[in-house]
């Protein structure tokens, strides 16, 4: 028991009541203080769950937690924070209307309710931390006006000012990792959750691998190779896929044509977006031809989401087109029918479906008034037999784990994404608009989704793909359009010369 004074999790079990998934199955972990720990695993391996348990956000069904040798009870994030354990979530929770300063106050340990807020001393405090870690903030800035990375930094700032000893970071961006490195040098413990095995090996001291809710082992990074790690994460069979990624497709795309096929999607000088935020685009012109994938890469809240919404014609009350022309199959956004244009939105659980409704009900949404679903073509009453048949076909074709009557919520994230993709592709549309569909998914599911898209693409479907993941764009696209602060920097052919780094430099 060399880690007697560190963090120990013993026999942690957790089953989610909502979908009966065993997220943690008898996990026991020892984490030595003062080190950089990496938790890796596929989607649904239980990485976030075990760390949410450690940060008091989720209560385990059974198991014990020791901190510095003493048993602790963590029933609320407050408990963990009081011990000095803080977590920054992958999906940030923040108050858009409040300022950086107010966020910091809300994160403070001893709130004195009736005390007047002392802006000056807090600002001085912020300035001091910013100076130490070389970041810049205006305390009066509202957090809704910050970009995604700065928001992460605000959350980190709050933890630092609370004198947190153990930092848990769920899929942090590079900027946060850099500060984490500094914090570690000061003796703080860092726990990073990531998909990325390169990060894992280059950053961490110790790597812990989870698979399917069980512990696969902990290793010192100096003693292992990427291949070994991939093998532990995926199991023997699939590890090659993780190492090669989607890159295998690049070779047959190297003959990328100069001229695109018959253009199906045409954008001419399009401007607009959410006029109350940074999420806007200006003067965007591009074309997507038959049988090709154009990936638009950019930062989500910096024009990417706006462009997606404008092209899909979604949320027109928020995202307004101020000028320019959008034509899809010669029609305006949103005027095409479900068998002409398929849309896979970026928010899988809000825009993508109704969680309490069944698989069938979520599936038929776009073609709910299609006569093929009714008992007879004259009476608009649903035929259960026909509905069931459609749903069963889709479940079989996409090997979705779940039954037709299950609620969407009882499916895992990957299966939900499969369902949403299947819905968009079911009527073999000529154009597919899709956004970040692989976000947070494991390699196997990702491959399944892109293979399904590939089949229709080979029959002439044009794909407009919005993503913030440069690597996914390189793996899947024929051409890549790079968006920077709402403007199109350039559109390049995706040849072997294109690297993530070169695109990343153009984006930022």
């Amino acid at each position, binding site marked *: 028991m060399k880690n007697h004074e560190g963090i120990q999790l013993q026999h942690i079990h957790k089953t989610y*009541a909502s979908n009966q998934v065993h997220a943690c199955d008898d996990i026991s972990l020892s984490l030595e203080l003062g080190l950089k720990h990496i938790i890796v695993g596929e989607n649904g391996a239980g990485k976030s769950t075990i760390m949410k348990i450690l940060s008091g956000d989720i209560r385990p069904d059974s198991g014990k937690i020791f901190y510095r040798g003493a048993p602790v009870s963590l029933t609320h994030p407050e408990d963990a924070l009081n011990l000095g354990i803080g977590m920054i979530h992958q999906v940030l929770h923040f108050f858009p209307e409040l300022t950086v300063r107010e966020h910091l106050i809300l994160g403070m340990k001893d709130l004195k309710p009736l005390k007047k807020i002392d802006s000056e001393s807090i600002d001085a405090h912020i300035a001091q931390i910013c100076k130490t870690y070389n970041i810049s903030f205006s305390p009066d800035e509202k957090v809704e006006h910050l970009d995604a990375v700065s928001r992460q930094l605000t959350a980190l700032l709050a933890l630092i000012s609370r004198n947190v000893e153990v930092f848990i970071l769920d899929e942090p961006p590079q900027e946060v990792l850099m500060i984490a490195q500094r914090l570690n040098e000061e003796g703080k413990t860092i726990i990073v959750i990531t998909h990325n095995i390169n990060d894992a090996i280059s950053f961490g001291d110790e790597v812990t691998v989870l698979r399917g809710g069980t512990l696969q082992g902990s290793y010192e990074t100096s003693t292992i190779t990427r291949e070994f790690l991939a093998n532990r994460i995926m199991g023997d069979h699939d590890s090659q896929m993780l190492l090669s990624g989607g890159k295998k497709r690049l070779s047959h795309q190297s003959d990328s044509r100069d001229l695109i096929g018959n253009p199906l999607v045409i954008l001419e000088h399009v401007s607009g977006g959410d006029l109350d935020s940074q999420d806007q685009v200006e003067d965007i012109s591009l074309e997507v031809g038959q049988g090709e994938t154009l990936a638009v890469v950019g930062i989500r809240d910096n024009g990417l989401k706006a462009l997606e919404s404008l092209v899909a014609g*979604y*949320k027109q009350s928020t995202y307004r087109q101020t000028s320019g022309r959008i034509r899809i199959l010669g029609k305006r956004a*949103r005027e095409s029918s479900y068998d002409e244009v398929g*849309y896979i*939105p970026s*928010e899988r659980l*809000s*825009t*993508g*479906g*109704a*969680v*309490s*409704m069944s698989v069938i*009900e979520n599936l038929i*949404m*776009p073609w*709910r*008034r299609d006569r093929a679903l009714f008992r007879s073509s004259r009476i*608009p*009453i*649903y035929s259960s037999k026909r509905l069931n048949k459609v749903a069963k076909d889709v479940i079989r074709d996409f090997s979705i784990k779940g039954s037709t009557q299950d609620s969407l919520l009882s499916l895992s994230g990957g299966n939900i994404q499969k369902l949403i993709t299947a819905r968009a592709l079911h009527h073999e549309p000529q154009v597919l608009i899709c956004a970040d569909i692989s976000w947070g998914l494991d390699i196997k599911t990702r491959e399944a989704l892109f293979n399904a898209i590939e089949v229709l693409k080979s029959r002439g479907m044009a794909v407009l793909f919005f993503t913030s993941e440069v690597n996914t764009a390189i793996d899947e696209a024929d051409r890549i359009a790079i968006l920077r602060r709402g403007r199109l920097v350039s559109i390049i052919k995706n040849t072997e010369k294109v690297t993530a780094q070169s695109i990343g430099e153009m984006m930022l």
Partner: protein
Amino acid sequence: MSRLLHSLYLIVLFIVIIFTILLLISPEPVMAFEDFVTGPFSNIYNTGNLFAIAAILIICGTGVSISFQAGLFNLGGEAQIYSSALVGTLVGLALPEGSGFFGILVVIIISMITGAAIATISGFLRYRYHIHELISSFLLSGGLLSLTDFLISNTFRDSKSFLQTTSKLPESFYLPSILPPSNLTITILIACTVACILWFWLYKMAGGYEMRVFGLNKDFAEFGNISSRRYTILPLMINGACFGLAGALMILSTQHAAIVGFSAGYGWNGIVIALIAANNPIMTIPAAFLLAWVETGTRTAMAGSSVSLEMSEVIRGMILLMITLRFFKNRRSRS
């Protein structure tokens, strides 16, 4: 199986609550309890009245279920019943005396249109000006209630009657009776039909599907091009029409004239029924019988002991609290 246990548990808890209340307020709780439970079924008159009350409650509950499923709160039921019943009665009085079936139909339709129109105003305001329908429907209802009171007791008052009431409708407007001498008419059949039709629309047809999606997830509804205007206004319109129907049926089957305050409480009871039935139109039928039983049970118990009418109010509130607080659900997941 667990479902059966669940309902059994609910019934036991329900009985315990009633008994506890009786214990507190009645000198002879056992006798009062017996009156309460068996009273409604002791004679045809009481049983028929129970059915008659249930019929109106089914229609009100079904209507509220529809607006709840669309995520809309209609707190204006009181006036939607009351005012549309008055309008229906006035139209009925204006028709020739022997209008018979045709006259009944006209009264019903006019009342439904009036109820729908009142509720639609709140839907329109919600869609167009983002005014919360919960507040606007309540305020409009508050205004209309006193206006209706005024019209009945002044403008349209039957000067020959001691009551504050309009003139009576001629007998050709009476709905056929089922269990004389009780108040029960064919309303119970109409009510069950309405509940079934709306259930069918909700779960088996595209319009109902769209409305449920709209109620559950606005983003998903927008993704699927579901009109937010239609499903902010239509559910309230249906809800209002149901209340109008309830008002008309009360006039045509029991009251035969608009009397001041005759429908008080049914708007709120509609909400209670919808909540007990988890917004499922078919389930409003048992829920309505439960509440009608509490109501008639209280009345029969009242005759025999010192139980007062407020008891049904208290029981109703308790049922509502129990159902929403999900005492049962928690227990089930623990076991």
